[in-house]
């Protein structure tokens, strides 16, 4: 729902594959160029022009289209104390939630990857699931659990004579963000931890080092680049998140950059020009974060890629196995089971109430969900749009990924950089840029489902690109050459030889695009209209109308669909012989 909820281990550039380039250096093949230029054109329309519109808006004194003058006045806001406070609050929340997410993610990673925890394969798939739910739904569920007076957990704590928690606080926001960004940290650390050759640890053991020493001296240094990368990406996500501070920050006046930005756009008198400046600042911070990440990753090749020691559960820490299992189960209970229970219980109530022994029970909320046209539409739209975005994104990624790997060159490198840079665009900013661009291009994209599709492709396309690039890097050029020798066209060679080889990776990229498109809120909120509602906007609308019981009923439906998608993806990836993540 935020800038780069997306990012899952994106390096900014891919290792050069110089050796592969020269074979295709002749430029005669027109179809390749047509494909490259087509891909570039699509990317320009999807990302570059909307962003250009945004920059234009930031130096105008009226929204685009209105008569106005050039001005730098909008940027004056950056030098006010109010802006300083917004940045400070965003940074505090960013640092706090990053630290929490990293601590949880690292614990999950070490336990699942480095110890012989029981059910490691199953846990490996389960701990990622919290990331697939819309985070603001998690935030609302946590209100039911930790509302100061009537939250279920607080009532339990009070009856035990223990201190209670107030979810409407910095701590509350950090808690919810940390819980739901932890899977992101895990996904980053997982490959790094898997890559550490177990023989290094074994040697340490032989030399008499304790597990904690080997963790500190061997695992930690080798995992450091992944740790840094995950911190940066989570931080960028956290300060770009709108839903969680939007839901939990209002009571204590915790306004952050994203909530201020949305307020400037949707509240009258609106000031979209100042909003663009906030958006550009937010984008600058995220770009900076990812550039630092890039620099760090470029310097170190951290995969040791030993032939031995791959696979889960390698280190010998047998007696800790069940302690590890307990920690993971605790995480799953807190991040998944408790909020889901709170949602499920409330979804069967006539109105939210902590009194369970009452006649406050009903099925009406589900009846409403399945009979109200706009909500039925939203369910269909969410499925169609997320699969559509994944299909569109995968085709585009295949084209661009191919040229990045096989051709190289400055133009391709630029295209590649451009494509990946979309993860630095907060979704509030993306939504605003898209409104302004498409409203001024009168070809009927604006106000239709197309604009949502384009937004999802622009926002989550890096998943597919990343998957495609790493897949193409593993395809031996000689196969393509063989195709050419036998007189097949480039298109035919691609279709018959290369595509089948890369399908498993493309599928895993597409799966991520589906998950993230499915839960996207912020850009959708700015772009949807009646007819193009998606589940996330329908949930948000129920939220803003105060219909929490119905909101939870729809969220439960959402959860069931997401679980079905996860099950489907796991089945597909087993068939394709690949793990579900890039």
């Amino acid at each position, binding site marked *: 729902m935020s800038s780069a909820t997306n990012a899952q281990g994106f390096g900014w550039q891919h290792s050069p594959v110089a050796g592969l380039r020269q074979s295709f250096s002749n430029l005669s093949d027109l179809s390749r160029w047509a494909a490259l230029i087509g891909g570039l054109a699509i990317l320009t329309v999807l990302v570059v022009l909307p962003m250009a519109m945004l920059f234009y808006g930031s130096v105008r004194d009226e929204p685009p289209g209105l008569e106005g003058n050039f001005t730098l006045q909008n940027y004056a806001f950056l030098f006010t104390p109010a802006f300083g406070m917004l940045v400070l609050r965003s940074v505090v929340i960013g640092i706090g939630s990053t630290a929490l997410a990293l601590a949880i993610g690292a614990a999950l990673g070490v336990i699942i990857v480095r110890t012989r925890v029981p059910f490691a394969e199953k846990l490996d798939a389960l701990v990622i699931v919290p990331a697939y739910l819309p985070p603001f739904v998690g935030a609302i569920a946590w209100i039911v659990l930790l509302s100061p007076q009537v939250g279920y957990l607080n009532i339990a704590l009070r009856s035990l004579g223990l201190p209670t928690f107030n979810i409407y606080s910095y701590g509350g926001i950090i808690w919810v963000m940390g819980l739901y960004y932890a899977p992101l940290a895990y996904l980053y650390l997982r490959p790094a931890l898997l890559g550490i050759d177990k023989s290094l640890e074994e040697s340490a053991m032989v030399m008499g080092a304790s597990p904690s020493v080997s963790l500190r001296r061997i695992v930690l240094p080798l995992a450091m680049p992944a740790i840094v990368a995950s911190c940066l990406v989570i931080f960028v996500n956290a300060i770009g998140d709108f839903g969680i501070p939007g839901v939990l920050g209002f009571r204590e006046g915790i306004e952050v950059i994203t909530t201020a930005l949305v307020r400037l756009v949707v509240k009258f008198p609106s000031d979209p020009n100042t909003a663009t400046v906030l958006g550009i600042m937010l984008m600058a911070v995220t770009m900076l974060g990812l550039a630092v990440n890039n620099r760090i990753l470029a310097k170190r090749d951290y995969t040791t890629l030993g032939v031995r020691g791959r696979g889960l559960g390698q280190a010998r820490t047998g007696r800790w196995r069940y302690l590890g299992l307990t920690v993971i189960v605790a995480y799953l209970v807190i991040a998944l089971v408790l909020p889901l229970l709170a949602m499920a219980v409330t979804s069967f109530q006539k*109105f939210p109430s902590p009194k369970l022994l009452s006649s406050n029970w009903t099925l009406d909320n589900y009846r409403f969900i399945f009979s109200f046209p706009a909500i039925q539409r939203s369910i269909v739209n969410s499925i169609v749009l997320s699969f559509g975005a994944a299909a569109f994104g995968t085709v585009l990624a295949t084209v661009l990924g191919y040229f990045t790997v096989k051709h190289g060159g400055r133009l391709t490198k630029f295209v590649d950089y451009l494509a990946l840079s979309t993860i630095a665009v907060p979704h509030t900013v993306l939504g605003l840029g898209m409104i302004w661009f498409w409203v001024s291009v009168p070809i009927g994209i604006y106000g239709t489902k197309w604009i949502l599709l384009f937004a999802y492709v622009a926002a989550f396309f890096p998943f597919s690109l990343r998957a495609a690039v790493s897949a193409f890097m593993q395809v031996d050029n000689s196969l393509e050459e063989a195709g050419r020798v036998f007189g097949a066209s480039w298109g035919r060679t691609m279709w018959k030889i290369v595509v089948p080889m890369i399908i498993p990776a493309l599928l895993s990229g597409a799966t991520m695009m589906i998950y993230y498109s499915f839960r996207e809120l912020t850009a959708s909120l700015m772009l949807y209209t009646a007819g193009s509602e998606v589940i996330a906007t329908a949930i948000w609308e129920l939220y803003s*109308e105060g219909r929490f019981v119905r909101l939870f009923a729809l969220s439960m439906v959402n959860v069931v669909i997401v679980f079905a998608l996860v099950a489907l993806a796991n089945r597909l990836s087993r068939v394709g012989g690949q793990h579900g993540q890039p």
Partner: protein
Amino acid sequence: MLKSVVAGVVAGCLGAGAVSLAHAQAGSVPDDISQEELIAKAKEEGRLTWYVSVPTPGSQAAAEAFMELYPEIQVDIQRLGGFGLWERLSSEFAANVHNVDVYSQADFGVRNDAAERGIIAPYIPPNARDYDPQFLDPDGFGFATRIVPSAIAYNTDLVSEEDAPKTWNDLLDPMWAGQKIGISDPRASGFTYAAFWKMTKSPAIGEEYFEKLKEQDPLVYEDSGQQINSLVSGEIPIVVLLDYRPWEFMEAGAPVKVVYPEEGVGWGMDYTHLAAQAPHPYAARLFMDFYASEEGTRAVAENLRTYVAMPGIGTYPEGYGRPALEELNLLPGDLQEQTADYDRFTEWFASIFD
């Protein structure tokens, strides 16, 4: 293969565009048109687009009732809460895109901007001419449907009948000090702004009242959805909020009661305007005529549990003792003055409550 996919996508987009350009024409309707002719022309147009901030259950019900009466005319609803709708409409107008026929929204400042830029045109349906004049646009740019007072509501599990506040001043009792009262944030809602502004202009209440209320350390809810849920779940005992929300929950059995203090209640209203560049001008008028009628307003009153400007509609939910709108002491206030005072008022409010 890839080329054809790209070409297909581009062609699809362009095709979709051509359709929407085709009906982008404006027109004007003679004032003396007969009802029969209006209906005939509207049916010829066959559809209209309604930009509306009225929550879906109300706007959808009104549109459906209209379509039942005129099955030949399709109502396309573009519903967005708050001001997102205005942002969109004004961007569209600036880009010379005219989709909207009828525009319903809840802020007089928006109405001023829209009138000034020629986005809306004056039109008051015949049915609305009997409304209380304060529910009509002073310059004829439309009429009100929802009338939304700000009232006190309390949780009957936490507040006894005897302790329950009956007047605004009762909220200043030391009993309610310390985050016991949750008030709506006037900066987050046009209705709340209109209501609180009228309260500050009333001699019986005034700005001093809010300054004293601050001493009680109330919670300020930017989000009225969370506010009502905090009340019904028992998180806080008393709220000052837009009055329609608790009635809906009361019907579901929630332990709440609503008090309209005798000193008077501030209130806000929404407005329905005719779009000056309406692509379907006849259908637009026909729909506005219907929306200002008994049937159209009843759809809103019944589905949103709100008061409406049309007299004699009754109150919903029925049988819960909700007073009629005429029984309330609605505080007066000049709309232009109220609108012009926005910046000063919100700054003053922030200086007290932030």
